């Protein structure tokens, strides 16, 4: 432990770039066969029955939602998966009922800003931790990892006061502003990626006279597009989902300035009979479906990035 090479000793398992696996003393097969496969017919049938059963459990709320969104008011609760009366008109009426277009526009703008800013800032910081040697690097990176464990409640109030004193209350700046400074998990994730790039690549560019920023801009960034996409997608989803910040910073403002989560929460209240609403839950269902769709589209295009990102989370420990 005398001369710890910063960067190589800190992350035990995950730090290994993909290529290292080839040098393993006991070379593994590229695609190992499944370790356990039910051999008996009964076992196979049971496995498939369970898998299909769970699929139905996971899909049922989606199908229920889709059905409820085209039902007339009185039938939303009837639990029929094929509506007795089709009322596709809900999809036309919802735009007059709720400022859904505003909410989605606000959320898209905020999510794009939040995701782009955090992906750029985190990768700059991650490159700093991955490539350069400087005093205190291991300690500072330890701090990055430590902040991942910090419960958000501890910094909630001071952050509110910061935005208040900067005059940003009632704007959407607090929902993306802090992303200018990188975010711990994303820094970790992108640093892992940069560490996997062969150092010779950078040394060669240095010899050719590239500046430090040039190394990042022309070599590291283009190669790190996959991890950049992971970060972007994760943050886009997180931002789309962020209820608490919207409650804190936007709830006092006009309904049209709400984001999607705040808007849906508002509409759940608006139609509740207990609040003098008329029980028009079909509009809430249409809205819920419409705000879920962008996420499903995102998943359809970026599935492997989401899965890869989550699996990386597991390797962080």
């Amino acid at each position, binding site marked *: 432990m005398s001369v710890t090479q910063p960067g190589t000793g800190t992350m035990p398992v995950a730090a290994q770039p993909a290529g290292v696996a080839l040098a393993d003393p006991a070379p593994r097969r590229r695609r190992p066969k*499944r*370790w*356990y496969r039910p051999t008996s017919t009964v076992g196979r049938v049971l*496995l498939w029955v369970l*898998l299909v059963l*769970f*699929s139905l459990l996971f*899909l049922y*709320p*989606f199908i229920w939602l889709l059905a*409820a969104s085209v039902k007339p008011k009185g039938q939303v*609760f*009837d*639990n029929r998966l094929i509506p007795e009366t089709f009322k596709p008109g809900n999809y036309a009426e919802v735009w007059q009922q709720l400022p859904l277009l505003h909410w989605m526009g606000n959320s898209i703008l905020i999510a794009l800003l939040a995701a782009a800013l955090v992906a750029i*800032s985190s990768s700059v*910081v991650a490159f*700093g*931790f991955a*490539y*350069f*040697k*400087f*005093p205190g*690097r291991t300690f500072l990176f330890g701090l*990055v990892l430590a902040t991942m464990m910090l*419960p958000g*409640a*501890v*910094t*909630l*109030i*001071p952050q*509110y006061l910061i935005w208040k*004193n900067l005059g940003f209350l009632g704007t959407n700046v607090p929902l993306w502003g*802090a992303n200018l*400074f*990188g975010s711990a998990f994303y820094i970790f994730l992108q640093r892992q990626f940069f560490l996997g790039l062969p150092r010779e690549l950078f040394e060669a560019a240095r010899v050719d006279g590239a500046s*430090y920023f040039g190394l*990042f801009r022309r070599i590291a960034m283009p190669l790190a597009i996959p991890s950049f996409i992971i970060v972007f997608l994760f943050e886009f989803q997180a931002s*789309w*989902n962020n*209820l608490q910040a919207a*409650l804190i910073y936007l709830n006092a403002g006009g309904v049209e300035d709400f984001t*999607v*989560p705040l808007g849906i*929460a508002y509409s*759940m*209240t608006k139609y509740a009979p207990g609040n003098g609403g008329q029980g028009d839950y079909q509009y809430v*269902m249409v809205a*819920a479906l419409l*705000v*879920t769709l962008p*996420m499903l589209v995102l998943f359809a295009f970026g599935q492997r990035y989401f*899965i890869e990102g*989550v*699996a990386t*989370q*597991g*390797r962080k*420990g």
Partner: protein
Amino acid sequence: MATLVRPRSVGTGAPAAERPIKQRRYNKREALAGYLFISPWLVGFAVFTLGAMVYSLYISFSYYNLAKNTTRPAGLDNYRAMVDDPKVALALKNTLFFAVMAVPLEIIFALLLASLLNRLGRSAGVFRTLYYLPKMTPSVATAAVFFLLLNGNTGAINRGLGLLGIEGPQWLIDPSWVKPSIVLMTLWGVSGTMVIFLAALKNVPRELYEVASLDGAGPVRQFFTITVPMISSAIFFNVIVLTIAALQVFDQAFLLFWRDQNNASPESSLFYGVYLFQQAFRQFDFGFAAAMAWLLFVIIMAITAVQVRFGNRFVYYEGDR
């Protein structure tokens, strides 16, 4: 002369012994560039994390006047008020109860799903996609749907239970079923944990199972003697992360129960995160809320420390040296 020269060389000798090493390790320009690259995080950390933590601690010992933006020293008043407030104890009890119920169920369910998927070949991808969809659904949409599904009289969940001859409870009203209903929603979105388990399961060397089955160990025995120990670090990680998340539960509780004044079971559904939020941003009692936040911080740290202590005895790390 000799006496003059000697002390000088000795004098520079001591630091020189360290300096050449440092100079070899750190190129000045490179170090500077490194600091420049991490400077966004340094600034953010100083202001939004460390600065905010210090300020939050300070607020917890103050009365905060939001209108004038001034503080007045409060000593331990906020902490005393917190201890005296029965709602804090209630919220803490509810939250711990929820975590104790949710975390093991999430772990077991996710592990079950991952083990099933791990037994498939290519078709695992299709099921993994299906199982992951709830995770992509915004929590507000999930809550809006479950709000109706969990309705005690007309909800689909009780209808389904009715088909099995079980009379379902009033999920969102009966105080003893409030937490299970949030657990149910949480379990529906368990696929993130499942994906982490699936990645861990794929890394278990197949040879171990071959040897075990030669020795006559059945699937159940293999699961507990090979799978569980081999993926123990993933289990450990998930337990810690899920516990921290459960102790901070907010979205589902807020959406199902605290959107407006009509809460049928305000006692049972009062979670720590919700009460803290109300104290901070509905009552604007920042001192009290900051004290609550620090209590939560200490509790989370303590629980994590116990888990780490306990976990290290059982966890097997791959490549442990």
